[in-house]
């Protein structure tokens, strides 16, 4: 690995831009990783190690790594961090970067499409079950409401997700 200041600056600016504003406070003490359930589960690039990679300017090199999606958002890292890094925000900023580069798995794309079309990321047809228990077949959700779907699509189209060009 070379130390390339341009790449380091770019990685830091990207993460700060996506909300990981404390990244430069990190002194690599490792307290976050000591309590991280994701690290314990074996995800290699979480907390301390993710920040290290980013501070080495390895933004593109790690873009396909799926560790960030292993973060459970428990925020224990934020509690124990002695420097106010808010590591979870860095992980989420990296996720946003990945999402913006469409660097996430295809299964995630499917659920995004579901969300866009029905208002539900995960959706199964409820009609049969509802009939069995004596409820009206059509539930009062966006999945069966054309106007609600249009409103959801308007929100997504005009938000950061719309900019991904998925839909």
């Amino acid at each position, binding site marked *: 690995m070379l130390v390339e200041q341009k790449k380091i600056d770019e990685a830091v600016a990207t993460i700060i831009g996506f909300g990981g504003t404390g990244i430069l406070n990190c002194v*690599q003490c490792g307290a976050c990783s000591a*309590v991280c359930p994701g690290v314990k589960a074996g995800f290699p690039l979480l907390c301390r190690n993710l920040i290290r990679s980013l501070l080495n300017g390895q933004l593109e090199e790690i873009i396909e790594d799926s560790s960030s999606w292993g973060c459970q958002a428990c925020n224990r890292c934020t509690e124990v961090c002695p420097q106010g890094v808010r590591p979870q925000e860095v992980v989420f900023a990296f996720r946003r970067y990945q999402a913006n580069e469409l660097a996430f798995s295809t299964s995630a794309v499917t659920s995004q499409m579901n969300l866009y079309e029905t208002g539900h990321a995960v959706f199964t047809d409820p009609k049969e079950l509802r009939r069995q228990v004596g409820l009206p077949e059509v539930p009062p959700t966006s999945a069966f409401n054309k106007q609600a779907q249009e409103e959801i699509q308007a929100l997504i189209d005009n938000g950061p997700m719309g900019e991904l060009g998925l839909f």
Partner: protein
Amino acid sequence: MAKVGVYVCHCGSNIAGVIDVSAVRDYAETLPDVVIARKDLFMCSDSGQEMVKQDVRDGLVDRVVVAACTPRTHEPIFRAAIEKAGLNKYLFEMANIRDQASWVHGHDHEGATEKAKLVVASAVGKARHLEPLEDKFVDVTDAALVIGGGIGGISAALELANMGHKTFLVEKTPSIGGVMAQLDKTFPTNDCSACILTPMMVDAYNHPNIETLTYSEVDDVSGYIGNFSVKIRRKQAYVDWDKCTGCGDCAAKCPAKTPDEFNAGLSDRRAAFIMFPQAVPKKAVIDMDACINCGGREIGSEPKLNKKTGAPILAPCEKACPADAINRSLPLDPGGRIKEVEVGSIVVATGYQVMDKGWFKEMAPDSPNVITALQLERIISATGPTEGKLLRPSDNQKPKTITFVSCMGSRDANFHTYCSRFCCMYMIKQARLLKEKYPELVINMHFIDVRTAGKDYDEYYTGARRMGINFFKGKVGGLEMLPEDKLRVLAYDMESAESIEYASDLVVLATAVELPEDAQGLAQKLGLQFCGSNFFRELHPKLGPVETSTEGLFLAGCCQGPKDIPDTVSQAKGAAAAAAVPLAQGRVKIEPIISEIIPENCSGCGICVPLCPYDAIAMSEWAGTARAAIEMSACKGCGVCTSACPSGAIVLHGYEEDQIFAQIAALTSGGRNHAG
């Protein structure tokens, strides 16, 4: 008419890297009364000073302006130079174009140059109006006060006493010795702490020039360098120390228990107690907060009489004392008594405390097997609660695995951002001592970084690795309580980027070093300032490490910032040397930059008297009427009285009205020459 010489300094690139020094020099030459303007790479160098001196000797200039750095460090140098050349040293003015221009406007070379010109013009404006002044002198009391009887205070006191100065050594606890007396061994040589400290304690106590006042606190300080008046409160021990022989019989009979501070709360002591076996002086104290007044023997009460024999019923402590040193019938004042001393200089060596584990909620502070490093020190010390055997507090069993956690509250934005500096070394020391004694003990040490800067320190650390002590780089994130009083350690290994989790029998926290709470009150009494880390502030972090902003007041040891024993002793000896200077000189110089009241103009209104922050002004009689008068040795030249006097009767020499107006005129001239 004044003949002003202006000398502009490059200060290497400090100034010239930003400011066009030639342009400033050219500009200075055009200012009124400036007869000569020169520049030099380093004005404070020998050749730079010689340049100024030669111009003075040649009669070219009779006022000198040096445009360079801060007067705080360099004004004395140039004053001395012109004095040597035969000019009154107060006919000198400094223009600080480094701090006020090049440093703060580094991004704007042109603007900084323009500002430097204004700063020089201002200094020249003042210099044209400068008048010669004479230094004044006051006699000093040849005695010193050392506050704090730890290794720092003892070292400073011995140094001062050996130089022949009477020294008062004040310590708030019943014995001198400080934290060092609580330690088992000391790094990097593993000397037994008591073996090297105790003789020094005895030396200090028996020194003919040292008066040791333990169980005493400084109540009030007034005065100034050379002549401080100090009120020392000798706390009420409820034992007549003139009679007490330190036999400890009172403690043996006393039934009232309270946590033993000397053992860091790991064991109990009695209300009547001797601080520790090697205490100096070895005197008993009755702690009234813990005393239960056996037999209704409140202090100052008449004893009840035995119904059968008619004999008085005494408390066990007074009955036990073979020296008759405890008499609870006496109406002893709980406030103790005040001893007043006069000293010429003061060394503050009040030491530190370590944070309590209770602050760290994620570190299972409720477990008895989570202890601070100072508590471990007591456990492994032969004078401690387990007589030196490693036994964990919950069940007095020997642990198989012990964990050390560094940086608890240090290097932590939630507590203290600074490094506590000696924890890495004492943790390694404790680990080494334990590994030597118990080779089978598993020792896991977790650090953010191992910081072992110091003579023979890194060798001590690498030696510990060779002894089979396990080092992990990575801060411990948390502890969890497990059955059998074990602790689950949630840690991380930076090098392999893997989390670590294991059960430990005993966990030692290296909690942060901080200033004790009562230091705040002392600071107010002494006029000490605090630094950003909330320790006492030294005069200059590099060049004035033992001095303070109050002349005659010096700092030593951890009250100025965390430091280990070698550094504390070094600083204490430095502080003692600095504190001895006024005592050795016999008189101190009072700079004439102080205020003077012109009695003819004073109306005697007295407004200035309460305004003076140094209590230097009092009303006195002048030509049969009351007039304000300033005690010259107490005046610091702050100028508050001068600006407040409704009659304009107070002159602040060195900052006189015409001088200040000339400065303002120059600064507001917009760079145009101002002949006024």
